[in-house]
């Protein structure tokens, strides 16, 4: 039946590569290294991959170029582009194709050298006729406009944004892979250069190199292996340009998470650990509300309470997130890798007790929202 994931698919390998600075590598090199590391962890070989899923920032035919680079001839190639959420939409397709028996081994990968290679964030989206005259600094200004509205309606403040940025650093300090492993003082935060009010440079995600990959198979292939299980995926999109967003303070994450929870047959209180796409500090507040972890308008107080940090009641972005760990242009797949690591007990000093994880990714200007529910073997 549609929407039922009683026969879940399994992630049996997930890896990162080149987080931070990886000079000399192309984006494809980085994606390939992460892919090979994920395959090695899975115990499968490259030749067994028959479903390939990828979207590189500046290669619009990367489904073709990646297959050629790896030297494989996949039965199914998917290069869906919804911004940073693309990889979770691809996993949704992969899960269906696996369940249908169309493919046996799905490889999902991403890589970018945009810190050392091209010297700045690569954006696939430029302003159009109805945005260009006003020179919004995209993507930041899009999120800044949403933030202004949240502050207006709910009294959210930069104190709350600081809590998000500071907490990301606290997690990053527990993660040897993270790029920014130092605390963030209030003074440093307050003195940061404003980019598009109310967001300063320290409210924006990093620009780093990095790659991530995951290997997915049907559940029966995973028997006896270390695995995390994909219990549900929900997608939703309700606009593209920020001025067309139906409600600037409620994103389509409300709908995507409801779909994912229903598929996985869980409620929000069952969730042990959360990985969110924190492209900007406001995202964390919006998504915690929209995913149901607190009421609409209370996200600021929720993050300031310490709930989401190390030792808190709801660990969020345990790797340090896009704000402090890694952000090579599109972060979505890193939410999956970190969820996998938490569920398989391989997260080192930042490990939390978790059987049920949510990974949530955002694309465009709060435009595409995709929520994935993953569980340990105990949740099957």
């Amino acid at each position, binding site marked *: 039946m549609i929407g039922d994931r009683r026969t879940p698919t399994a992630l049996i390998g997930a890896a990162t590569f080149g987080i931070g600075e990886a000079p000399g590598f192309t984006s494809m090199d980085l994606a390939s290294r992460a892919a090979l590391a994920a395959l090695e962890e899975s115990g499968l070989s490259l030749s067994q991959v028959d479903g390939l899923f990828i979207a590189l920032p500046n290669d619009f035919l990367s489904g073709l170029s990646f297959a050629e680079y790896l030297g494989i001839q996949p039965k199914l190639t998917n290069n869906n582009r919804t911004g940073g959420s693309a990889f979770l939409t691809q996993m949704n397709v992969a899960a269906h194709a696996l369940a249908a028996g169309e493919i046996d081994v799905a490889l999902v990968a991403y890589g970018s050298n945009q810190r050392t290679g091209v010297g700045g964030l690569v954006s696939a989206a430029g302003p159009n*006729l*109805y*945005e260009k*005259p*006003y*020179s*919004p*600094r995209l993507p930041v*200004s899009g999120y*800044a*406009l*949403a933030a*202004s*509205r949240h502050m*207006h309606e709910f009294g959210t403040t930069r104190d709350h944004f600081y809590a998000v940025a500071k907490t990301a650093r606290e997690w990053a300090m527990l993660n040897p892979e993270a790029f920014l492993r130092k605390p963030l003082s209030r003074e440093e935060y307050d003195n940061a*250069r*404003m*980019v*598009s*009010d*109310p*967001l300063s440079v320290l409210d924006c995600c990093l620009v780093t190199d990095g790659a991530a990959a995951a290997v997915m198979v049907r559940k029966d292939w995973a028997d006896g292996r270390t695995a995390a299980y994909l219990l549900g995926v929900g997608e939703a999109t309700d606009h593209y*340009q*920020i*001025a*067309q967003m139906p409600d*600037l303070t409620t994103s389509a994450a409300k709908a995507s998470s409801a779909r994912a929870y229903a598929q996985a047959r869980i409620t929000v209180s069952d969730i042990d650990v959360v990985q969110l796409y924190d492209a900007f500090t406001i995202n964390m507040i919006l998504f915690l509300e929209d995913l149901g972890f607190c009421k609409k308008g209370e996200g600021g107080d929720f993050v300031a309470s310490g709930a989401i940090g190390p030792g808190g009641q709801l660990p969020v972005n345990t790797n340090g997130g896009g704000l402090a760990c890694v952000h090579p242009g599109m972060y979505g797949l890193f939410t999956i890798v970190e969820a996998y690591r938490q569920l398989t007990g391989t997260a080192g000093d930042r490990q939390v007790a978790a059987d049920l994880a949510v990974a949530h990714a955002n694309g465009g200007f709060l435009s595409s929202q995709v929520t994935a529910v993953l569980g340990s073997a105990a949740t099957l």
Partner: protein
Amino acid sequence: MQATRPDKEYLEFLAQGRFMLQRRRPDATPFFYPRVAEPGTGSTDLEWIEASGFGTVHATTVVRVRPPQADYNVAIVELDEGPRMMSRIEGVAAADVRIGMRVHTRIVPFEDHHAVIFVPLDGETPTEELQP
């Protein structure tokens, strides 16, 4: 008039000093930006109507730039007719633009065509040309 080439017709109206919106006939809520069909219904039975030019600031940001360029405003304006659009509020310091502020359109030259900006009601005269 049937809107068959929405961007082109929209810009031609602006060149005549008219800020026009599309709506489904006879009197559906107008939408923005211009399209070949009404979003959501796909109806192509459209007409152009002249906007009142009045709106309210719905969201606002100040884009910071390096001197000697001046910081500038980017806003989302909710038109009195209903739809929202990205624009810029001029005639007031970028940082003094407030959500809820009542504003009115000005049509200004931009590149080789025109664009709609807004000024506060009772505000000062804006600059003549949009300079990003």
